[in-house]
């Protein structure tokens, strides 16, 4: 029997941080991931990690205020305080672990400016900070002695009497199904970017954990808040880091005008992401773009700076659209990037389900509220990953495993998977259903939204769910059956697409990432509250939760 006090699902930054903390807290700990840990999507964070270091004259309160304002006052201020207070130590811990942060002239950690913040407090490794952090976290994971299940796909949860007993997992390499028993389960499964098409997110970002938790009765929160990043590459939609604008790049319309003057005269290109994405979309809609894009111009930054600090995004431009940012502006547009919402947790990662935790992008604490600041996501993963791991380790000291019939659980799951494989071969292809979902979401739940569009998507999702029931699985084999994995992932994505659209339709104001053309203003009187969505007997059930306000009174946002 495979059993561990703490089982972490997902081995990105949050997951590995949680596992290391749980192990250090004395719990027997394992981490399970559908890909090898270093393939996780934390890799793709480019620009940096925020922290207010007091020895640099910065204060955590200033960072917290910028975060609160960035969230359009929907972020929970108590949680934001926790994150921003912990940031300095979290950053120094990562440096001590071995991250090769860029330095200033005195050899101390160097900073760059980032969107929505009044001072430069973003610490970075070139333009691949996430990758640098992820690989160092993996080094620490190796050192920690945490058991790793690499390329194991969690297909369902085992729950008895509303208590978590463990998970069912498919070992992708062999096709074997296993039950893994655990006292505490921590979801660190990342975001749901692939529910949208296109998205900056990796192909693995299918919201598995959010769907598993939701189906088990966990509350999801802020699901309507989907961040469109201002600079995603034409075509494939991969990310071009905010670091470019942090280093001083301009956004230009088709005539070479810096249009941000009209929208954020003080912060210009470094206004918060929701503001910049809306500005771009407005310009594109008004015919001031080219082929649905505007331009990111880095030429004036000079070759030396680009090669030292932005070399990887330069390569992406060359590799994918044949454009060298040293010599020419590159075509970009707003693109789906990040889920502010997710599994509702407290500051220790606990959910409404006993024994179940969540941290990182799959969780909603809520520190990002309506809009996440750039470089706060890496911080979120590390701070709340660690807190969840600590809490889970302590919590399982005086608890026992919940008993369940292991053989029956394995048999049931094997049958469920076999039924999948045995489907007739006459339905739509998996990719066709996924594309239908992604394009519908991106059409009607993008930068600008309205009731008509969102209702249309909800209808389309219903049809897609029907089509999903008959998608065939061509591959009948056991070994590395990615066809089966994609089918399971698509099921998870469809499970959460409707809650996203329903939440967005319900919120009748414009706030943070949600901009409704039919309700263009922020309405604090009626909508200064979180939307919570939970699976009920007859479908998703919406409710509301108050926003925590500690010291910053909501005000109009100007950049």
């Amino acid at each position, binding site marked *: 029997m495979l059993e561990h006090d703490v089982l972490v699902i997902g081995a990105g930054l949050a997951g590995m941080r949680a596992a290391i903390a749980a192990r250090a807290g004395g719990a027997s700990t394992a981490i399970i991931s559908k*890909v*090898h840990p*270093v*393939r*996780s*999507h934390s*890799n*793709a964070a480019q620009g940096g990690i925020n922290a207010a270091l007091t*020895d640099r004259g910065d204060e955590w309160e200033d960072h917290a205020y910028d975060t609160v304002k960035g969230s359009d006052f929907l972020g929970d201020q108590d949680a934001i305080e926790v994150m921003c207070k912990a940031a300095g130590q979290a950053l*120094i811990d990562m*440096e*001590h*672990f*071995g991250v*090769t*942060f*860029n*330095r*200033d*002239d*005195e*050899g*101390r950690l*160097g900073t760059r400016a980032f969107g929505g913040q009044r001072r430069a407090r973003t610490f970075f*490794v*070139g333009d*691949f900070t*996430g*990758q*640098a952090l992820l*690989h160092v976290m993996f*080094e*620490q994971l*190796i050192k920690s002695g945490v058991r790793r299940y690499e390329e194991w796909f969690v297909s369902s949860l085992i729950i008895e009497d509303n208590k978590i007993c463990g998970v069912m997992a498919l070992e992708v390499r062999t096709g074997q199904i296993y039950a893994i028993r655990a006292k505490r389960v921590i979801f660190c499964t990342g975001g749901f970017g692939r529910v949208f098409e296109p998205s900056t997110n*990796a*192909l*693995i970002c299918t919201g598995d954990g959010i769907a598993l938790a939701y189906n088990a009765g966990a509350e999801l929160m802020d699901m309507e808040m989907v961040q469109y990043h201002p600079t995603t590459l034409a075509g*494939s939609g*991969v*990310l071009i880091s905010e670091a470019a604008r942090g280093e001083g790049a301009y956004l230009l319309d088709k005539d070479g005008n810096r249009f941000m003057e009209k929208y954020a005269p003080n912060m210009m290109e470094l206004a918060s992401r929701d503001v910049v994405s809306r500005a771009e979309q407005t310009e594109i809609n008004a015919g001031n773009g080219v082929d649905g894009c505007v331009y990111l111009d880095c030429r004036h930054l000079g070759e030396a700076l680009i090669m*030292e600090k932005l*070399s*990887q995004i330069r*390569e*992406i431009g060359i*590799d*994918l*659209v*044949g454009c060298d940012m040293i010599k020419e502006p590159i075509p970009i547009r707003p693109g789906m990037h990040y889920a502010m919402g997710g599994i509702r947790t407290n500051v220790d990662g606990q959910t409404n389900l006993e024994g179940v935790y969540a941290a990182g992008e799959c969780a909603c604490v809520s520190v990002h509220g309506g809009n996440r600041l750039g470089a706060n996501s890496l911080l979120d993963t590390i701070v709340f990953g660690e807190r969840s791991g600590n809490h889970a380790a302590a919590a399982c000291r005086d608890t026992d495993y919940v008993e369940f019939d292991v053989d029956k659980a394995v048999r049931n799951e094997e049958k469920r998977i076999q039924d999948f494989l045995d489907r007739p071969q006459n339905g739509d*292809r*998996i990719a066709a259903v996924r594309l239908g979902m992604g394009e519908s979401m991106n059409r009607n739940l993008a930068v600008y939204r309205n009731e008509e569009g969102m209702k249309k998507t909800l209808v389309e999702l219903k049809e897609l769910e029907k089509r999903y029931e008959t998608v*065939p699985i*061509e*591959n009948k*084999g*056991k*070994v*590395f059956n*990615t*066809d089966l994995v994609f089918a399971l992932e698509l099921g998870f994505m469809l499970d959460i697409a409707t809650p996203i659209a329903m939440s967005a339709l319900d919120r009748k104001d414009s706030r943070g990432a949600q901009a409704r053309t039919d309700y263009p203003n922020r309405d604090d009187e009626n909508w200064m509250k979180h939307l919570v969505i939970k699976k009920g007997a007859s479908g998703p059930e919406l409710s509301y939760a108050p926003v925590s306000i500690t010291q910053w009174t909501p005000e109009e946002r100007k950049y």
Partner: protein
Amino acid sequence: MDVKLRVQRFDPEAADPKPYWEDFTAAIEDNGTVLDALIKIREDTDGTFSLRCSCRSSICGSCAVRINGHAGLACKTQAKDMLVDGVITIEPAGNMPVIKDLVVNFDGFWDKIMQVEPYLKPEGPEPEAEYIASNEAMLHLSDVTSCIMCGSCFSDCTVLEVDPSFLGPAALAKAYRFTADPRDGDENGVSKDRLEELNKPSGMWDCTRCMECVQACPKSVAPMDRIMAMRDQALQAGFHNTNGARHTEAFSDSVEHSGWLDELRLVPKSVGMTNITALVGYAPIAIQAITHGKMPPIIHKKLPQSKNIRKIFDKVEGPEQR
């Protein structure tokens, strides 16, 4: 544009499991990547086709395959540049057993990474704030830590092909990332214990400098260059007692002092003058050399222009060093 691909497939569950070739045509954008084409095949043509891929932007390291015989990331390679007689040939990465189609078993790769104890090991006390280090030192390291563990170098390493015990380019570059880190090792940033380990057989001296890893690497790691830099570190840390170190020193001594290589004395100087067993092992080669008229001169004369060679050494190393 339509792209033709010839893909090596493998199904371990087939009645007679052996690799075979299959041709596909995939419709992709004009500037589409090889990965776009492979995904198209998987999604629209054949759901049984397996490959690893995720980020599509050369950062996750999942999609290393051999494209026209050389390892690289499918997502970083434009399809139109790879057409040879109208076809792109795709095989799984090398030096690793194939699990299915383009999916290979990375266990051997990771075993070697684990062997170099891949985490920072500072010997002194930890500062309260960050370690103070120069930006240059960190930028240099960042070139190496930009390694995404894709296995391209491992795939095309010609030493691993014949000697699976070799640590290989990825693990050695990973090791260098620590030996060159001012925070690792003693207070001067010298990682003596690591260098001692890496100095052993199968370590840094087993690289034959074929450059394949540098060519295959999709990032700025240049593994072979790091291995060479690590050899310098080992010599500077006082590790002279290996064939490799002696060979390097004998080679450069000879060139420095006479202007050309004293091949006759290179072998005994490399393996050790008193290492009779090893010297006897070279006897057949020596006999062959004599019978084929390739015997180097017994008296090794200085070249008339050898002073100029020496000047080059002085310029590179500085006369005070010697």
